[in-house]
């Protein structure tokens, strides 16, 4: 972290506190973004190691590398970690670092709430992972169906860690959603009309709306489970009139939009990267925006396709099969638009562009199997088999993670001021492509050959084909893991001695490339005036290669400093208090609950009554110089 901080230098002068305190109290969206990226990368490594243990266990039939008890914890924590603590916060990290720059803003709408989001995510994630050392990790799968998650079948504390850890992280995510809706509506620089926003900003906006409406049902669901487990309630207890399908409905009403929360930001990143390296404006911008909105809307209408085998009958299943297949149309529009953005361009295959182009075939495979899964009667065969595991990894790795990595190579210079090594990057890309496909393509076959998901091992009686493809898949998983060693080495090497990036190393199109790398703490010395789509490209090709200042702020001809929000320790303390209360609830220690809540509410009180004087920062030099 020290190395990054030094590169970023994003620390207001006024801060006289110690180094650690300056990170704990920061409200700067760029530093918060960096902490999101760091923490979620660590969680990604943990989830990846869990995946490797899963693959070792399944490498041959009847393996005893891990016990079934441990295996159940491994696959649960792998899924939960990757979805909630790795991929989603990786995107939130990029959103934090980049979106305010793309719209010409000084910061997000609520800088200190942004810090609270971060700390709830980090501390919630730590709480969830601490379960390994405090009585056992959750073991009922990432969707944690009732009643196997209830006390009679699951007396240990693992599920409580899942419940409270995700509750904390989820509330943080919800606040991120609110923050970025307000930021994008209210903080755009003059001239940045909605239909001039870069696609990454658009997908962030739609993602934030999905978060806003998808997370509250999840919050409620987690509360209901907590009441059942800790307070003797009966929401899912059929002996007292409870209903186990209630969990599934509330979970998937959240869970399906969550899938789009995980893919829409990737769509945005791919759109930026492909346009930049094809040296063309995005093909069909309007239809891209419309498709994003359509996908966001449809996301709320398809949740029952996760429940096709629940026996709801032909009318319900048909209806949800139709809405699900409908999503293929706007998604297809996006794929064609990306291809035709490259069409007629001059494509430069940097590592970022390799990941963006490689995304297309992988995501098309995931999309194809998605349509096949949507056909309810066929899904009766695919459901809960390895076919589904293959599908979801094609969309989550082939889709989301490829987007994350394209974004990582693309924006790393903007975030740190240094260019990642291209040779190592290409090794990373090709090994990942090989390792990924060798790992996950055979899983389609395994599903069709009758292997259910979440089995701790499988019998040799399932035949040599099942054993063969499992071994192939395990070998692929190691190739995939090795590809990431190249990536981490690249990160390490670049931070120590990487090539310095200028403000605009890729000849970029959006506004973030108009300012120095890393961005100064105030982002833009003067709020810029936006004169078209691809705002920075317009200035480079039609203007004089400099951003124009929006006149509003300098109308009085006076020079004044830039008013930046001041940092605060209270966001961290609120999150810490809630974490302490969470541990208290898990272990039934009411005193701990009380201490945690007092700390949290004292901090909330301090934030309500706080004056926010802010800090005046003097800009240095001009934009982009």
């Amino acid at each position: 972290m020290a190395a990054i901080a030094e590169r970023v230098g994003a620390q207001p002068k006024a801060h006289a506190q110690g180094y650690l305190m300056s990170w704990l109290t920061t409200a700067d969206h760029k530093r918060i973004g960096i902490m999101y990226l760091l923490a979620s990368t660590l969680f990604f490594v943990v989830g990846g190691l869990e995946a490797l243990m899963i693959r070792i266990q399944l490498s041959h039939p009847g393996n005893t590398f891990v016990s079934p008890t441990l295996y159940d914890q491994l696959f649960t924590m792998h899924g939960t970690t990757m979805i909630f603590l790795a991929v989603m916060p990786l995107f939130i990290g990029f959103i934090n670092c980049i979106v305010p720059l793309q719209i010409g803003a000084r910061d997000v709408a609520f800088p200190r709430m942004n810090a609270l989001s971060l700390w709830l995510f980090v501390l919630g994630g730590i709480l969830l992972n601490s379960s390994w050392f405090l009585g056992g990790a959750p073991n009922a799968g990432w969707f944690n169906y009732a009643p196997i998650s209830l006390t009679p079948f699951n007396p240990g504390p693992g599920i409580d860690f899942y419940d409270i850890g995700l509750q904390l992280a989820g509330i943080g995510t919800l606040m991120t959603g609110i923050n970025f809706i307000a930021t994008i509506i209210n903080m755009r620089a003059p001239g940045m009309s909605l239909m001039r926003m870069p696609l990454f900003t658009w997908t962030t906006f739609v993602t934030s709306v999905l978060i806003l409406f998808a997370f509250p049902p999840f919050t409620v669901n987690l509360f209901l489970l907590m009441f059942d487990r800790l307070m003797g309630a009966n929401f899912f207890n059929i002996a007292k009139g409870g209903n186990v399908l209630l969990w599934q409905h509330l979970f998937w009403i959240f869970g399906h939009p969550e899938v789009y929360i995980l893919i829409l930001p990737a769509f945005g990143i791919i759109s930026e990267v492909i346009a930049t390296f094809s040296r063309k404006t995005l093909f069909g911008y309007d239809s891209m925006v419309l498709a994003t909105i359509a996908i966001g809307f449809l996301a709320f209408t398809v949740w029952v396709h996760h429940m096709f085998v629940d026996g709801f009958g032909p009318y319900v299943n048909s209806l949800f099969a139709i809405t699900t297949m409908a999503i293929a149309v706007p998604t297809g529009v996006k794929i064609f638009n990306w291809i035709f953005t490259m069409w007629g361009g001059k494509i430069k295959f940097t590592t970022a562009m390799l990941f963006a182009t490689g995304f297309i075939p992988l995501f098309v495979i995931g999309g194809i199997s998605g349509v096949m899964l949507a056909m309810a009667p066929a899904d009766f065969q695919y459901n809960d088999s390895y076919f589904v595991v293959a599908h979801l990894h094609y969309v989550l790795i082939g889709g989301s993670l490829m987007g994350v990595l394209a974004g990582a190579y693309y924006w790393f210079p903007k975030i740190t001021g240094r260019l990642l090594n291209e040779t190592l990057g290409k090794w990373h890309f090709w090994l990942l492509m090989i390792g990924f496909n060798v790992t996950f393509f055979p899983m389609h076959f395994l599903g069709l050959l009758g292997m259910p998901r979440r089995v701790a091992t499988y019998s040799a009686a399932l035949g040599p084909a099942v054993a063969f493809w499992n071994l192939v898949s395990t070998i692929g998983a190691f190739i995939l893991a090795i590809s990431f060693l190249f990536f981490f080495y690249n990160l390490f090497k670049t931070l120590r001695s990487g090539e310095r990036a200028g403000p605009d190393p890729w000849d970029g199109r959006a506004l973030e490339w108009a300012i120095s790398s890393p961005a100064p703490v105030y982002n833009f010395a003067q709020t810029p005036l936006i004169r078209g789509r691809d705002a920075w490209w317009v200035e480079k090709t039609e203007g004089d290669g400099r951003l124009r200042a929006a006149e509003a702020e300098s109308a009085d001809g006076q020079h004044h400093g830039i008013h930046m929000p001041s940092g605060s320790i209270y966001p961290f303390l609120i999150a810490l208090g809630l974490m302490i209360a969470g541990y208290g609830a898990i272990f039934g220690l009411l005193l701990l609950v009380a201490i945690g809540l007092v700390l949290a509410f004292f901090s909330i009180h301090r934030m309500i009554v706080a004056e926010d004087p802010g800090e005046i920062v003097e800009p240095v030099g001009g934009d982009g110089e």
Partner: protein
Amino acid sequence: MINQGVEPAGPGPVSPEQAKAQDNRVLGFWIFLSGECAFFASLIGTYLSLNTHTAGATTLVSLIDLPLTGLMTLSLLTSSLTMVFAFLAMNRGELQAMKVWLWVTALLGAVFLDLQIFEFSHYMASGFTMGTSAAASAFFALVGFHGLHVAFGLFWIISLLSYSFKDGITAANTSKVWIAGLYWHFVDVVWVIIFTVVYLLPKVH
């Protein structure tokens, strides 16, 4: 935006960034409230799907005391009115009057909560608890979460009252009061729905 009627009454220039922050706060709060709608919609949906699942145990309908819940409704609705008076005072720049009306609002909120605690303890004494049946769990979750929202509103209003207002009512602090009021009205509206769905309709039928 929404709080157009609120003119900066206090002294001191406002930087463009501070003006933006006021705007953000109100917009952000409306966004938060739409998330709250999804939260209560999930709870009400849960209640409606489980309210007949009484497992043969004590039912809510047999315990409802409409005059009591009517009194609760009255106190909460009145508190919304007094919150409006606080706003009006704020718009006129009358700090003391605003504080008085906020105190009255908090007091009415406290009356509501007190009655709710009485109501819950009466139910529990009659053998209707979280553990009685799925219907009972759903009742306590829905109505209890609303109660917690009222309690948080009280905490918020009292926090505001302890805020110094050392420069009087200014453009920088009106939105602090404004969003607390918005929250209070929202919680009130949710109560009207809960009162109708949970208490009134089952009792009338």
